[in-house]
């Protein structure tokens, strides 16, 4: 699948994805965290990635710690560019329970919507070259809707680019997203 038009909307993709999510840990950063959080509170949501780019690394830790627990990462393109090495680290560690999405809209959306250095960069190609077990590149919502169920059940590490439009301006309520209570609740849920 190529990145040719038509593009998707991130929130629409997440609504489709949410229909398939049950007890997975979902790690999301910045704009992805805002859109995912809009779909409803879940104890197994994890937004406290701390530093731009680290979502995939938190995801690797959460995947390695319990191989039976499925982990989804909703990354941003600007974020992933700050931690491209994590693609190689994740591929080498080879967690079968990790699915890594990147929402590619070509901009640092949370920082003024300036363009990333190369908005057309091929993330799925890089993930494939790094050694991910499965890679996908979606730009059409119908195709994404049709295939996402299969993507989520593949042995990982799985990578999927979601080519999306810039969204309307979002409200970034970081104190709420990063609240310590959310981290405590997640830990309690994973202990039970």
């Amino acid at each position, binding site marked *: 699948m190529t990145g040719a038009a038509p593009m998707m909307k991130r929130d629409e993709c997440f609504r489709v994805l949410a229909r398939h999510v049950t007890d997975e840990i979902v790690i999301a950063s910045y704009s992805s965290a805002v859109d995912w959080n809009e779909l409803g509170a879940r104890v197994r949501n994890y937004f406290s990635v701390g530093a731009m780019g680290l979502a995939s690394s*938190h995801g690797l*830790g959460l995947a390695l710690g319990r191989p039976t627990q499925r982990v989804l990462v909703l990354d941003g393109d600007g974020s992933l560019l700050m931690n491209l*090495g994590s693609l190689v*680290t994740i591929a080498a560690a080879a967690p079968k329970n990790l699915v890594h999405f990147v929402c590619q809209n070509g901009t640092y959306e949370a920082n003024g919507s300036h363009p990333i250095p190369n908005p057309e960069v091929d993330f799925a190609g890089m993930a494939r070259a790094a050694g991910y077990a499965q890679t996908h590149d979606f730009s059409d919502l119908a195709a994404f809707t049709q295939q996402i169920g299969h993507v989520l059940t593949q042995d990982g590490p799985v990578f999927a680019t979601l080519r999306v439009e810039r969204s309307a301006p979002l409200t970034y309520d970081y104190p709420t997203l990063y609240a310590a209570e959310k981290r405590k609740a997640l830990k309690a849920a994973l*202990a039970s």
Partner: protein
Amino acid sequence: MDAATEQTKAELNGGLILAAIKAAGVEFVLSVPDIVTSAGLLRPIARDSALRLIRVCKEDECIGIASGLSYYDKRALILIQYTGFLDSLNAIRAVAVEYKQPICMMVGLLGHEPERAPTQSGRFGVRIIEPILDAMGIAHDLIREDADVAKIKPAIDKAYAQSAPVALLIGRRPRPSQ
């Protein structure tokens, strides 16, 4: 024998450090190679089936991975050079300090002269490590001879008990066990 000569004769046994790491319940070691700990520590860890070594591309990845593992109470040790520590400060600031995660770092002080305190090192990069840790409120211990190895397990236990970061500064190249 003066103190300086005694210090020169001091040794740091990598096998003792490895035993202390395992005694502390560490299951995962996350590392970018550091020449200070390469032969005496990282190579034995790589051969040790009781530890899972995750080789990362850049040190700040370790902060996220260790945080993720901590949600299951899986203990991790981050084995890096002080240059990697400096490169990871923003991740450490956010995840370890502001989010109060149990991030345990073992940091090789490349170029450090073991007979001196790190703050008196001739290397600028080494001199600033302890002041930075103090400014960030991160507990730290200097490990530069065998007697210091006893600090490792309590430091890691405390980090996980209190959900707080700790830095164990390796001030001498550990000698590989025979």
